């Protein structure tokens, strides 16, 4: 594998219908990075969660809005950047309830960010309200 960085990008309309295409894209990226199937599956799920959040929370399902996923591969890692220009939010203010509490409240949500953090090695949000919201996730490659 060349030591040079390689970048793969995908943009699709903001609709949950397109999550399947995003997952196929991530599967392709994982294969290009030479990742093991189990790690590709983790990457796939983390990106699905992040994009579902953009579609459902940042924009609402508006096909005029775009979900953008960029993957940067180098020798050591796969870096995923997901950018939206939606309403933004403060990740530190999202309450982290445990599973029993969520179930007791009949909640169906609140699991996505938790999954992303468990699946990836690094997860950072950079929110510039009204301008752009960027989520960067990194998965290190096992050598």
């Amino acid at each position, binding site marked *: 594998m060349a030591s040079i960085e390689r970048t793969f990008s995908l943009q699709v309309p903001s609709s*949950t*219908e397109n*999550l*399947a*295409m995003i*997952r*196929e894209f991530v599967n392709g990226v994982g294969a290009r990075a030479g990742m093991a199937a*189990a790690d590709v*599956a983790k990457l796939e*799920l983390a990106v*699905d*969660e992040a994009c*579902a959040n953009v*579609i*459902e929370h940042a924009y609402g399902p508006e096909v005029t809005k775009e979900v953008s996923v960029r993957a940067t591969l180098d020798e050591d890692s796969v870096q995923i950047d997901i950018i939206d220009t939606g309403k933004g939010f403060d990740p530190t203010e999202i309450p982290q309830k445990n*599973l*029993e509490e*969520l*179930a*007791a409240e*009949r*909640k*169906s*949500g*609140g*699991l*996505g960010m*938790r*999954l992303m953090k*468990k*699946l990836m090695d690094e997860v950072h949000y950079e929110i510039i309200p009204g301008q752009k919201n960027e989520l960067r996730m990194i998965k290190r490659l096992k050598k």
Partner: protein
Amino acid sequence: MATSFTVQRSTSGDITILALNGFLDAHTAPEFEKVIQEEFDAGRVRLIAECGELTYISSAGLGVFMSFIEDIRAAGGDLKICNLTPKVAQVFEILGFNSIFDMVPTVADAETCFAGPAREV
């Protein structure tokens, strides 16, 4: 394309078996929610999710299980999960779903669970 998700419903006495097939994500979770809601509304609260053909699940799918479990148990029933593939099982485990749900190998095992004492809510 990996968008398809189906639920096939069958019954065994007062137990409803829901065989999930395909991709359960933010797009398809509402279909699963609707099926469980229908069972619940019909007073059928002994449910088994048969996941042998469930190839993918994201948090939206897990959320359907989570949001119904208390109401189902409060109504005297349960929702048991069986026959998870290793890939899907891993997602349930990462989130600690085994602390809330009975997850067993086969439909027969799940039926046996129903024959035993009710799980604490």
